[in-house]
């Protein structure tokens, strides 16, 4: 179990580093997915299979698909990758790197100093998670659900508005097109068609 834990952790760190350094957006996202999967394995080795699977379903399976979906739609080509490469100057990445290195040093220090053998102390059942969520952290769950409800209402509002506008535009566009064609669907330059007023 410990070997699995450390392997997954190394994979997660490596994949995250690769996520940051890739210039191709899709490749970066793929590494991010690998990193999320590795983190889910870490959760599993720590005795939280429920959280591990939720990580796979929600983060890797749903949210990242939406990310990839959007990036795919944007159709970033070679030019975007070149631009990305130009932007990644040392001046940009030194600051975050130093901060991350400090964090890493801290983690390493904790691992070396601490007992470290805390993996899989006890398996947490889904039922326990639910009990804790709906008793101790009830306020948090309710707040999160309110936030999601607000998000859903907002998304619906935006979508409905967009759709109404588009419908109006379509209608007028079609009318204008027809008027320009002399009321006929088939536009004849020579005129003389029976439908022309």
């Amino acid at each position, binding site marked *: 179990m410990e070997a699995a834990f450390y392997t997954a952790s190394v994979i997660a760190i490596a994949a995250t580093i690769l996520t940051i350094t890739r210039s191709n957006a*899709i490749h970066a996202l793929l590494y991010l997915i690998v990193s999320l999967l590795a983190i889910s394995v870490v959760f599993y080795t720590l005795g939280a299979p429920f959280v591990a*699977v*939720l990580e796979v379903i929600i983060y*890797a399976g*749903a949210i990242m*698909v939406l990310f990839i979906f959007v990036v*795919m739609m944007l159709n970033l080509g070679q030019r975007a990758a070149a631009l990305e490469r130009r932007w990644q100057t040392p001046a940009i990445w030194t600051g975050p790197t130093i901060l991350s290195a400090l964090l890493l040093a801290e983690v390493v220090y904790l691992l070396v100093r601490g007992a470290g053998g805390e993996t899989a102390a006890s398996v947490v059942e889904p039922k326990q998670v639910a009990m804790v969520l709906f008793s101790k952290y009830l306020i948090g769950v309710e707040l999160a659900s309110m936030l999601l409800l607000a998000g859903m209402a907002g998304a619906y509002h935006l979508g409905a508005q967009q759709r109404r506008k588009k419908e109006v535009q379509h209608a007028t566009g079609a009318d204008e097109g027809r008027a320009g064609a002399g009321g006929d669907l088939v536009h004849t330059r020579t005129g003389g068609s029976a439908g022309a007023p």
Partner: protein
Amino acid sequence: MTSPFPFASIFGILFAALIIAGGLPWVERRVLALFQDRYGPNRVGPFGVLQTLADAIKMFAKEDWVPPFADRAVFVIAPAVLMVTVLLSFAIIPAAPGIIVDDLNIGVLFFLGMSSLGVYSIVLAGWSSDNKYALLGAMRGAAQMLSYEVFMGLSIMGTVLLAGSFDLVKIVEAQRGLWFVVPQFAGFMLFLIAGLAETRRIPFDLPEAESELIAGYHAEYSGMKFGLFFVGEYLGITLISSIITTLFLGGWLGPWLPPVVWFLIKTSASIAFFILLRAALPRPRFDQLMALGWKLMLPLALINLLATGAAVLAWSF
């Protein structure tokens, strides 16, 4: 947690799944022919049984071509993702007491997680092909599978509530008195439709719709990479059928015959029903598909879950 003979179970289930998936193309073509008053492949071997073998040899002999404009690494990974996710899902299916790879206490969620990862193979295949039809197929696949996953999970939760566990073995044991297809008929129907959409079978095969998108996300694939998609689809059908059997049709439970035989009979019946749907139903338009998913299926799944929860609560008092 694991079965007494882990390696025997792993290889047994792996080989069974692969053999069933390998034989399915032939079975499907024969059964489809039966529904359409034809014979289907009946030349290679007795009753054409070796047709799949002949097809496999043909596929191996074909040129394994990667288009020069494709994103090579992603293009190669995509079909493997499909196979890996589907085959991993077979790990949690109890074919009989003791014949299971890993009796996870979150088996249902593991299945949902793997099926949600399966979307990547389609999205990545479509994107890396750098072909507009493949991209359109990938878009459709991503949207379709994401939306149908939502109520697929919700439709299963009714059985989970009744059994009181995410563990598939416990769910089967809970059906000793009554199969869950009776109290959870709405959930069963919803899961069937969602399963069709997840496996991209014919009423919902919009990602590959050959009449409009040629072959959709695998338009650029040839040789054994296409073969992986092909086998992956049939593995997916087998997987969904065995999940339906486990969750709603009482798994291995049944009188007289050995448990494995019962499991196989129920799974085969479910697969046959999938084939019947393919023979009978036309493909909906894409907006109809999305509207069906979000405007009809999702509310129904929520109502089903609420009603089941209320019933379970009332029963426990």
